[in-house]
């Protein structure tokens, strides 16, 4: 077939004609196959570079052989064995329990605040009120936690107040430098996470829902338990994960408020790195990642976490 006998090839009408008319750079910027498509790959690249790759390296290094001051390629599960056969696993579980306690208390204290703001505060002021909870984050975490010491200590404000009003005759020493102190520190540090995510979830609950509940005569408790919590469950879970992860990883809190040798996963990793036991540090990090991924998976199966990102209708 020659060019003479073949029908003339013309760009199809409409979109194809536009593409042919536009310079290549303009097509790249505006076309579906150009930059728009690339933009969608940015999160993928970001997640690969800053999440998948570090996680993969963490797993690989955790099975490397330890040398005196570094590590060398190899395959050994010695770091994992060390973790599970020493008391580190026990320390890890204790830290998980403290974090879980902080999650429960944060829910009890923080979620009602989110509900209250959503239900009672005028819509125009809701976001501003919620933003007030950012204020504590503008103070250094170290200072926030350390500031609890003069409040909770043996001769601190709380004990002095209780003694002054005659509630106690001797200072209570069980508040500070105990697991209770750690849980208090975690709650006060991470409570805003529950308020934020709770409020975010509550935004998806339309106000008429409350009105319907009132009209149908549902009590406060049953409205909260049977309507609000199930609707806001993904947000509550997301806030819980934030608190749990931070409680497990921020070593400052047990260091400053915990009892003798109080620790958490972050401290365990840190101690290993300082002792130049890099495979052990990587193994603990890998265990932490797997634990948290498992929690996220369970949470997603139970609450469908994508619901928190659904547009408000």
């Amino acid at each position, binding site marked *: 077939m020659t060019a003479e006998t073949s029908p003339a090839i013309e760009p199809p009408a409409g979109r194809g004609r536009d593409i042919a008319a536009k310079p290549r750079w303009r097509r790249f910027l505006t076309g579906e196959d150009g930059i728009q498509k690339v933009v969608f790959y940015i999160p993928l690249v970001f997640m690969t570079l800053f999440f998948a790759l570090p996680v993969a390296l963490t797993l690989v290094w955790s099975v490397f052989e330890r040398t005196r001051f570094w590590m060398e390629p190899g395959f050994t599960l010695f770091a994992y064995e060390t973790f599970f056969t020493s008391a580190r696993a026990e320390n890890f579980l204790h830290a998980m329990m403290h974090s879980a306690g902080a999650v429960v208390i944060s829910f009890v204290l923080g979620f009602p605040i989110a509900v209250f703001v959503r239900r009672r505060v005028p819509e125009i002021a809701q976001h501003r009120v919620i933003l007030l909870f950012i204020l504590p984050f503008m103070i250094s975490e170290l200072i926030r936690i350390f500031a609890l010491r003069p409040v909770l200590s043996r001769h601190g404000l709380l004990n002095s107040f209780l003694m002054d009003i005659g509630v106690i005759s001797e200072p209570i020493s069980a508040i500070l430098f105990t697991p209770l102190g750690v849980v208090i520190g975690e709650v006060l540090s991470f409570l805003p996470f529950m308020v934020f995510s709770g409020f975010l979830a509550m935004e998806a609950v339309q106000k008429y829902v409350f009105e319907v509940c009132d009209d149908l005569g549902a009590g406060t408790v049953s409205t909260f338990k049977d309507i609000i919590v199930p609707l806001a469950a993904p947000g509550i879970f997301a806030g819980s994960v934030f608190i749990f992860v931070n409680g497990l990883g921020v070593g400052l809190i047990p260091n400053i408020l915990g009892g003798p*040798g109080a620790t958490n996963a972050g401290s365990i990793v840190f101690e290993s790195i*300082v002792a130049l*036991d890099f495979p052990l540090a990587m193994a603990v990090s890998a265990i932490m990642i797997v634990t948290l991924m498992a929690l996220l998976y369970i949470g997603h199966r139970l609450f469908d976490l994508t619901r928190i990102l659904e547009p408000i209708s």
Partner: protein
Amino acid sequence: MNQSEFTRRLFMQGMAGVAGATAAGGIFGAAAAEGEALRFWAPGIAKVAAKDFSAMAAQAGIGINNIAKSARADEAIQKMVVGDGQKLFDALTDNGGGMEDAMAENKAVVPLDTAKIPNWANILPDYNEGGAAAETIRYEGKVYAVPYISNADSMAYNYDELGFHPDSWGVMFDSQFKGRVALQNDYGPTLTNVAIYLKESGKIEIDNPSDMNPKEVKAVCEFLIDHKKKGQFRTFWDGFQNGVDLLASKEVVMSSCWEPIQLVARKKGANIHYGTMKEGHQTWNNVLMFTKGGRQRGMDEAFYKLANVYLSPWFGARTLATFGFAPQMTGVDDYLNANTEDFDEAARERLLDILNRKQQRYAVKGNSWQNVFPTHIREYLDWWSRLQAA
């Protein structure tokens, strides 16, 4: 902050931050040196007599470009062994008794010619070959480091609460002070000091408290676990300010700690003293090292001039006055008496008294030098985790 981030290393990191705020990237005393400034990776505690390294540079007759450094072992190893530290730094400081071994084994630092340091003749006798501290500056028999500060860590106590001056670590394990005792949250100094106590009081046979075998580590930790379970300890402290607060607020009546903690707690009004323990103490030092990169760039002369300042009584008197650290050379007392324009009579008396007490502490037979990386370090860490969990 050392071996936690909240350890002496973190304290140094804090001091480094102060220095870094004023000194990072700056060249001091540049007029004194013809050549390039020495790029010096060191914390703030490595300088005296000025807020930056200008006085040190002037004294050495060189230029110093100080880059603020934390005192974390992992950071130093990563930077110097696998990072770009060789390109960036000509000299650095770190803990003796381990870090010089780590650096030398990885060929990150080079051996030194002590003949090029005139003040080497002043170095404390313990650093000479065969001396108690000799190994803290040597690797395979060669000198790789110059010590510039040290101390013998002991116990701080509140005299008003105790009513007596304790001279034994045993008081920390006395049940009458149950719940009023703090220990440092660092397996290195804590296990070493307790091992010294148990060894010297004849409770447990220990060969070398700074490098225990697994059986000895277990025995020391079981002793601590037993007392922890009985409620003897209020907490294990991390970080300089944390250590100060525990003593100043009277939350505890005694604590194993660094000497500057006692000094600051005392300034806050509590009657805190720093004792000399008859069983002994963990002694430690910080050292100056010359990087392979520095030698390749021909910075030997500047390095040796700086090393010479670190071993001069001029530096020793001032680090004693500023931080309370022990000078690493002889002749500081003569220097203080001869320099009345820099140190008035009251200052001289105070410093000579501190120096005298330090020398008493250093003279205790059971002292043991810090070992940053003991042979059985994993046993140390495993048993430390058991103590944490108990």
